[in-house]
């Protein structure tokens, strides 16, 4: 193994350590459910809707499910997913999202998301807003959703964009 590889491995290890160390700052818990890195893309001033992404994991033994969400900044928040129906991607509301132990549920662009309908204010990059998630067994938790640039595909890990 040469020095370069060692350096890369070390760098990756440090990144991972930093990443997981930061998780606490973005993580929220409701009962046995952990909500990690909630984020949203910024929207144009007149945009009527937005989407929230995150990862839900279940640290408990029993399955639970997300049954609804709400936020003061939108008329309503719905659970949506994208499915490929006959080769065409369609967005579809779902009644619930299961959170089973051992299999984290990702909400990500192009897949599951919390759809915010009737935005009362536009989502401005660098700001955050509250979102309440209601789980069937674990109850409710209110999380702060960080808003990132319009082109973002994943959450920012630095946490520097949190409003000061």
């Amino acid at each position, binding site marked *: 193994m040469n020095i370069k590889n060692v350096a890369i491995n070390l760098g990756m290890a440090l990144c991972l350590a930093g990443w997981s160390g930061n998780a606490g700052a973005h993580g929220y818990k409701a009962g046995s459910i952990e909500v990690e890195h909630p984020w949203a893309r910024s929207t144009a001033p007149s945009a009527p809707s937005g989407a929230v992404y995150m990862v839900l994991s279940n640290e408990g033994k029993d*399955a639970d*499910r997300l*049954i*609804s969400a709400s936020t003061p900044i939108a008329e*309503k928040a*719905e*659970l949506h*997913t*994208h*499915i*490929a*129906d*006959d*080769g065409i991607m369609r967005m*579809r*509301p*779902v*009644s*619930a*999202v*299961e*959170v*089973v132990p051992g*299999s*984290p*549920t*990702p909400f990500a662009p*192009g*897949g*599951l998301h919390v*759809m915010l*309908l009737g935005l009362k204010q536009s989502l401005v990059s660098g700001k955050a807003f509250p979102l309440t998630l209601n789980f*069937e067994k674990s109850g409710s938790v209110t999380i702060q959703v960080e808003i990132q640039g319009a082109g973002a595909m994943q959450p920012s890990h630095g946490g520097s964009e949190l409003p000061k």
Partner: protein
Amino acid sequence: MAPISSVVTTRLIVALAVLSICLLMASAAWAHAVVLETSPEDGAELSTAPREIWLRFNEPVVPVSVRVLDASGTAITSPEGVSREAETVRVALPDGMKQGGYVISYRVTSGDGHPVAGSIVFGIGTTPEAEPADTAASDGAFSIISVAAVTMRALHYGTLLATAGGGLFIVLVLGHGTASSASLTTGLCLTAIVAGATSVLGVGLAGATLQGFSVDGLLTAEVWRTGLASSVGVAAMVAFSGLLSSVVGLALKGRVGNVALICGALLAAASLAATGHAATAPPEWLSRPLVFVHGLMAAYWVGALWPLVKVLREAPADEVIYAVRRFSGIAVIAVIVLAGAGGVLSVLQLGAMDAVTNTPYGWVWLVKMTLVAALLSLAALNRQRLSPALVKSTTRDGASAYLLLDRSVRTEIAVVAVVVLATASFGLTPPPRALLTQDGAGESRRHDHDPDGARPAGERHGYTTVVMAGQRMATIEIDPAQPGRNRFKAYLTEPGGSVVKPLEAHIDMANPGAGIEPITRSLNITAQGTVDGEIDLPMAGRWTLALDVLIDDFEKAVFRTELNVPEGAGP
């Protein structure tokens, strides 16, 4: 082998089988025996009702529980009807089976002691889907055992309230030790005996219902043990001690007697709060005390009626006036509290106004409220007109005020009897709040707005959920998510969003609450990588679904979810 010893052997085998199942329950159900052939076949549509059903396995098995359930989830066969000859298990069917969907739910042990369980669905005169849910529900609700249970419960409530309230009447209105209260002793002892006997029988009936036995199951000890271990058993024990306290209170005079009578009434009310839909409506910290207060106030009112008639007819005029005034003074407060508690409980139970007209529970509630309104009018009439008239008439001879009040109170008794019967009938149907929030499915369905009108109307009643298995995601659609035939469709995606094209897929549907073992259906795999198929959910309740997908020869994924199938919600 002599017949007797053969019976003993069979029992021994069953006992051993049960024991081994208990031991093996924790481990996976290894299917060492498999079903080779059944009559009727799974999914069959029969034109006439068969005399019996049978299941043939690949090896001799011991039946542990083989039951045939109708669309309402009521077992129509008894354990005695199950017979076995080597590898075939037969179950005799009752006469007069109605058109509709049925489920054979079986649990047997194979030769090596491993349990094997499953379900087979068939229909008579119809495809094996459930009857329209509302008729199915009422068919189930009016089976002999539930009619017996309602009658028993009504008789129990009535006599329990009469005993407890009679005691309160003695303590609060007449005064213990007076001649009038002494004349009530025999009557109240009689109601106490009936209340005690009905509470005991209620335990047996609860046990039989839980075990899925019919009325003749009351002869088995198992049924009584089950009943006693349920909340009905707890309630019966509380009621029993309350009745005992009341009877002791009747026998003793003075302060001790008063305390015993009041204790009796409190315990009687507590027994009502120990079980039932109303006492367990969330939040329980609110509903249980409310049921207790509702029961106590009802006891005061209902229990005073018969003593009032007795006093009106037998006591001297001044004593009658005194009793009526005292009763009436407390009754105003009691009725306000009674109605208040009942009102809050109704809100907790019904959830929404439309439940009153849409659900059987709501109809029963409506009947009760109509009768209660009549009862309140009678009570108001007594208080505003008849009682003052009674006070004005100086002698009781020839005074029509006595006759009128007597007639009015007797009418109240008759109406109360029907109110109690209606209250006992609540147990027949699940309260609407259970249908709404049993698993949050109803809750989320209420939020399930159509964002842009793009969704076909037919899908609005279905249920859609997203489940992970490892990093694969399944979006599962069940339409209409109601008893009967449902369309099942799942979209499977890999982490990157590409579709999964499985080699094979099937779904296992079980309803552990109703004792239904998994029903397995294989699914079609479409070119686009979705899996779909028709599934039959024979009855309402909480179903566990396991979508089992073979990804390739070495890997499979199981997506698990639960589905609440509401009862009586029309499409």
